[in-house]
C-alpha cells in the first residue's frame, strides 16, 4: 500500500474525484500556474498538467471573488474545490460563505444545493497573526455548513472525497504543519503524518470520529495538530501510569458527540486541546456538551487547553508559548487526576 503525506493524499483525492466526475474542478490562487508550488502547500501540484487549466482555475488574489465563483458554480450544478491559501483570508469571503453558501439550501426550501468544497489551511507557523488562525469555531457556529478536519493522510483522502460528493458546502480544515515535513513548502516544525493510503476507492464518512488511543483514566479530545500533541502527552502520561484515551473527532459538523460522551462515561475526565483562542471556542462547546449530557459521569472539572486570548505572536519563541504544548496537556490531565 502506498504511503503518503497529507498533501499527497489530498492531491490523490482530488485527482480521483476529477477523473470520476467531470463536474469537479479546482479554483484558487496560484494552484495551477506553471513553475508554481501547486497552491500554497503543494496540494494541487501537477494537476493542471493532468486536467488542464479549464479545470484547475487560477484566480487573482481575490478571496471574495473566488468564493463567489465557487458558490455560484456549485449552485449551477458543478462541484468546485476552492483553495484559499491561508484560512485567515476566509474573512474576506465571509459574506459569500456565511450569507450565501450556508443559507441557500435552507432559504430555497431545499431546491438549491451548494455542493462546494473549501479547503482551508490553518495553524500558527511563524508567519504572524494574519497567517496563523485556527478558524474552525467560526464555521462550526454557522448552520448550513459541514466542517471536517482530517489529521491523517488516510482521513484526508477519505474525507475530501466525501466532501466533494456531499450536496452541502463543506469546509475542509487542514493544518499547515501536517502537510508533511519535506518538500518545497514544508513549514518549520512540521510533522510527517505519513500513513498508508489505499489506492482503491474508499470514503471516510462525514460525522464519524475515531479513538486514536484507548485509555481508562482520562479522555483527551484533540483535532489536527493538537491531536498529535494529545497523543504525545498520552505517551508521557502512560509512563506515569495514567492511561489517556485520545479522540480525534475528524468531523466537527456534524459532530460524533456520542463517541466523546461514551469515552467520558468510561473515564470520568475530559481535557480538550485546540489551537484556537480560548474564549467562545470549539473546546468550550465540547465542554458544554459533556457538562450537559454526561455531568454525573464526571469525576473532575473539564479542562481546556487552548491558545491564550491574543492574536498569534510573530516571535518564534512567543509562538512556541502560544500554541498548546504537550506539557500543557500533561499538566491539564494531571490536574484532573488530582495530581496537579
Amino acid at each position: 500500500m502506498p504511503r503518503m503525506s497529507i498533501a499527497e493524499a489530498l492531491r490523490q483525492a482530488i485527482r480521483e474525484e476529477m477523473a470520476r466526475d467531470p463536474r469537479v474542478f479546482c479554483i484558487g490562487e496560484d494552484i495551477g500556474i506553471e513553475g508554481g508550488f501547486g497552491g500554497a502547500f503543494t496540494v494541487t501540484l501537477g494537476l493542471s498538467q493532468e486536467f488542464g487549466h479549464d479545470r484547475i482555475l487560477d484566480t487573482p488574489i481575490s478571496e471574495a471573488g473566488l468564493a463567489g465563483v465557487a458558490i455560484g458554480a456549485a449552485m449551477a450544478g458543478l462541484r468546485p474545490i476552492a483553495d484559499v491559501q491561508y484560512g485567515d483570508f476566509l474573512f474576506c469571503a465571509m459574506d459569500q460563505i456565511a450569507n450565501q453558501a450556508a443559507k441557500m439550501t435552507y432559504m430555497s426550501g431545499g431546491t438549491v444545493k451548494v455542493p462546494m468544497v473549501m479547503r482551508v489551511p490553518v495553524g500558527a507557523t511563524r508567519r504572524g497573526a494574519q497567517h496563523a488562525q485556527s478558524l474552525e469555531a467560526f464555521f462550526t457556529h454557522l448552520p448550513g455548513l459541514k466542517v471536517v478536519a482530517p489529521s491523517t493522510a488516510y482521513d484526508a483522502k477519505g474525507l475530501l472525497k466525501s466532501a466533494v460528493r456531499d450536496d452541502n458546502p463543506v469546509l475542509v480544515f487542514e493544518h499547515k504543519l501536517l502537510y508533511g515535513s519535506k518538500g518545497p513548502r514544508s513549514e518549520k516544525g512540521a510533522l510527517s503524518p505519513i500513513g498508508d493510503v489505499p489506492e482503491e476507492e474508499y470514503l471516510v464518512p462525514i460525522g464519524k470520529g475515531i479513538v486514536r488511543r484507548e485509555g481508562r483514566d482520562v479522555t483527551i479530545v484533540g483535532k489536527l495538530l493538537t491531536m498529535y500533541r494529545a497523543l504525545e502527552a498520552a505517551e508521557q502520561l502512560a509512563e506515569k501510569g495514567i492511561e489517556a484515551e485520545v479522540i480525534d473527532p475528524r468531523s466537527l459538523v456534524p459532530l460524533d458527540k456520542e463517541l466523546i460522551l461514551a469515552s467520558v462515561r468510561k473515564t470520568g475526565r475530559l481535557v480538550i486541546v485546540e489551537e484556537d483562542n480560548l474564549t467562545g471556542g470549539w473546546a468550550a462547546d465540547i465542554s458544554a456538551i459533556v457538562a450537559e449530557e454526561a455531568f454525573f459521569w464526571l469525576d473532575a472539572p473539564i479542562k481546556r487547553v487552548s491558545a491564550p486570548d491574543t492574536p498569534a505572536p510573530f516571535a518564534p519563541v512567543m509562538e512556541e508559548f502560544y500554541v498548546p504544548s504537550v506539557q500543557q496537556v500533561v499538566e491539564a490531565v494531571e490536574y484532573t487526576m488530582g495530581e496537579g
Partner: protein
Amino acid sequence: MATDVLVPPLGQTVDRVTLVAWYKEEGEAVAAGEALFAIETDKATLDIEAPASGVLRRVSAQPGDEVQVLSTIAAIAAADEAVDTPAPAPVRQDQAAPPEYQPEAEAATPAEALPPDRRDRTFVSPRARRLAMAQDVPLAELQPTGPEGAIVERDVRSYLDSVPAADISPVARRMATAAGLDWRQVAGSGPGGRVMRQDVERALETPRSPENEVAETIPVRSIRALIAERMLRSTLSTARVTLTAEADATALVGLRAELHEDGVAVSYNDLLLYILGRALRDHPRINASMEGDSIKVWRRIHVGLAVDTERGLLVPVVRDVDRKGLAELAQETRALAERAQAGQNTPDELQGGTFTLTNLGMYSIDAFTPLINLPESAILGVGRIKKQPVFAGDQIVARHMVWLSLSFDHRLVDGAPAARFLQRVVQLVERPHLMMA
C-alpha cells in the same frame, strides 16, 4: 446599616429547614420584596423575599444545608459597608461546630469574603457522588484526593475496598431473597467471608423468633419522620393531662339534621370547630403556647383539624374559626382536607394553629388520650356519637351521647381552668342554641 437575612419562622414547630437555592449571588444587588432564596420543609418548598434593598453579602449557608429557623444566613448591605455581625453557621449533621466567623478577614478583602465553613467545604465530584449513593458510602468518611481537595471516584472505591465487601453467591442470594432473609446478617463461610448456599441454609434452619420476621421495612422519612419527632417531643416535653366528659349531643344531632334539611351540609367536625371558636374565645388562656419561659396567649383562634391521609397524619389549620359562619367553615374545612389527601397543602395551611381538633368517632372509638400538637397547649379528642339509654329525671330515654377528651399541658394550664373550658364545650354541644346568645 446592614439588614440581616433571616430564615423565617414557619409555624411554631418547624425549627430546621433545608436551603434549596439562592436566587442572587453574593455581591449581587437585590431589591426588597424580590425572591431571594428558597427553602424546603417536609411539606413544601417556598420562596422567601429579600427583607431590604442593597447588595447580598456574607452568605453563610449553601443550597442543601439545613438551617435553623430565625438564624442569620446572609446580610443585605451597601457594597462597601462593613458587615461584621457574626453569622451563625448552618446546622450540619456530619460536622462539629464550625470555627468562629472572622470579620476582619472579610473587611480587608471582600473577594475572599467566604465564611469559614464555606472555605473549608469539601466538594464531591458528580461521579463520586453517584457511586457513593449507589453503594451507600458515607461521604464524610472519605479521604479526598481529587483536584482542589475534592472527593473523586477513586476515594469512594478505596473506601469500598477497605470495607470488607458483603458478598453473596448468586444461588445463596436467590434463596435468601425467596425466604425474606437479610443475608447481611448471615456469617459467610466462603472465600473472603462470602455468604454461600450452606450459610443461608443454616440460617434458615435456625428457628427464628417471631420479631425477627420482618414483613416490610419502611424507612422513616419525610412526613413519617416529622410525625415521629413531633409526637415524641410532645410526649417528652409536655405535662399532659386528659380530661374526659360525656356530653348529650342529641340537640347537636338534631341541629345538624335541620341544617341539612335546609340545604346547609355541615359535618360534626364543622359544628365542633364552630363550638371551639366560641369556647376558646371565652377561655383565651387555653388558646396559648409556651415559648421559652413565657406563655403566649394568642389573639386569633386557628384550629387545626387532624386528617388521616395516605402519607400519614396531617393537620391543616382552619383560620379564625370564631369569626366565620358554619357554611364558610364547612367549605374551608372540606377544601383543606381534600388538599391534605392530595398532598397539596401549602406550608401556610399546615402551620400556625393555636388548638387542635381530632375526631375518631367514625372508627367507633369512644374516648382516647390525644397527644398535644406542639406548641399548642391543648387538643380536643372526639369519640363516636352513640345512642344510649339515659336517665331523664326518673325516666330512661334514648339520647345521642358523645365522649369528649381534652388533653392539655399542665405547664400552661391548671386542671380547673381546663375543666371549665371542657365544661363550656360540653354545654355548647348539649345546648347549641346558646351560641346565639
